[in-house]
């Protein structure tokens, strides 16, 4: 009797393991190829057609909430327009990338290097830009998404190293694809940590020379209270993990420092300028003092150096 029971359990177990590969075969897995890039214009998916549509799999409507933060390129553009000087010595050391062995450190430092890459691109540091892209590639390899920064992309960046707009396109397209892949592969945590790293590096670079910075730059730094709010919303939208919890704890002193920035909410309004451009004005008023900015600078440097050691 015991023998028969064991056989039955064995056959069930075998059935499960035999069924799994079959399911993979029928369902298909991996990434949908862009027919345009593969030349297979007639390719069809069994699930959703190439135009992104299929019969609905659910009936009940829901509300999807997205959380987003400004990209490192947008932050670097802000810094440039605010009159900051390029400081190559402030960037994260390239050779440290090989030492990051955990997913947590690889993800956060990918964001930090993305911040440095964006800063280098915007300030026309051509060779440095390619070097930082190569370093991002190394970390992407470790995260299992190295194919998104392949040799062809590096060569494209190298060939366009003197054309800022082309490099900006390459960087934004690449990091958009990375964010998409992290979402598709259920690696949202990695995307969130990368976004945090990029935000931290942007604010770190912006606060390095506060004593000599323009009023515009100081205002831009104070306004980062709003983007920090976006970032915390993003991090809180994921199921908690030790790495996300550690990041939120690391950012707690930065949040406390930004509490010194006062934002008075006012109603915004859209008006049409004489050339037809719609201008949104009104909205929040931001006020701060030098001491608050100094604490922001200290706390952001601490969290940045905690991860980038």
């Amino acid at each position, binding site marked *: 009797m015991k023998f028969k029971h064991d056989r039955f359990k064995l056959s069930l177990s075998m059935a499960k393991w035999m069924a799994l590969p079959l399911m993979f075969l029928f369902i298909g897995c991996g990434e949908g190829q862009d027919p345009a890039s593969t030349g297979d214009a007639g390719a069809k998916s069994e699930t959703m057609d190439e135009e992104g549509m*299929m019969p609905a799999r659910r009936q009940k*409507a829901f509300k999807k909430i997205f959380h987003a933060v400004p990209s490192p390129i947008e932050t670097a553009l802000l810094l440039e327009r605010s009159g900051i000087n390029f400081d190559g010595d402030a960037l994260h050391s390239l050779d440290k990338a090989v030492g990051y062995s955990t997913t947590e450190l690889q993800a956060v430092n990918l964001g930090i290097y993305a911040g440095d890459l964006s800063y280098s691109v915007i300030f026309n540091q051509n060779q440095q830009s390619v070097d930082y892209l190569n370093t991002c590639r190394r970390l992407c390899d470790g995260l299992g998404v190295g194919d998104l920064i392949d040799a062809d992309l590096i060569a494209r960046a190298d060939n366009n190293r003197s054309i800022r707009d082309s490099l900006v396109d390459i960087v934004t397209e690449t990091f958009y694809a990375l964010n998409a892949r992290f979402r598709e592969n259920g690696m949202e945590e990695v995307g969130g940590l990368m976004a945090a790293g990029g935000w931290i590096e942007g604010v770190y670079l912006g606060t390095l020379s506060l004593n000599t910075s323009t009023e515009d730059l100081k205002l831009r730094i104070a306004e980062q209270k709003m983007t920090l709010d976006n970032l915390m919303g993003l991090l809180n939208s994921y199921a908690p993990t030790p790495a996300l919890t550690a990041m939120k704890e690391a950012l707690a002193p930065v949040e406390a420092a930004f509490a010194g920035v006062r934002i008075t909410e006012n109603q915004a309004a859209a008006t049409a300028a004489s050339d037809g451009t719609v201008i*949104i004005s009104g909205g929040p008023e931001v006020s701060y003092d030098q001491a608050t900015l100094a604490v922001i600078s200290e706390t952001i440097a601490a969290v940045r150096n905690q991860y980038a050691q």
Partner: protein
Amino acid sequence: MNVMRSAMTAIKKFPLAALALVMMFTAADAAAQCRTFTKKRCLPQLDDYVQNDNYNTAVLIPGDEAELELTFFGDRAYRLLVCGHPVLGDLTFQVLDSRGNGIYDSSDKDSDHFDFRVANTQQMTIRVQVPETDGVIQHEGCVSIMVGSKG
């Protein structure tokens, strides 16, 4: 009795596991198809803008809503693009300020994007609606909320 109980447990558990796997891989494939859709149909409309690199794309059905909160920086021009599969009909969207007051409503306009300049930095919310349909067969499709900026 033990054999029967084991069999029942397996029958109960296995379809659930199978269903979970089916849903997981179907969802992953749909997400990948959405990226292809976005690349082909949406990104070209942000040609003159620096694209925000966040991936705000989801598979939605009629009656769904999507919402995105983002900070827009002062003295910068933006294009907000709400790009959805045509099978979902005409998507509508509103832009709200940080207090929830409406700034823009696409309902009475024939455009999938909103071009504007922000005078001073502010957080705004973009709210998107997929119209209800009375069709017998409902379809789902990809919807992307994209933001580009320029000097």
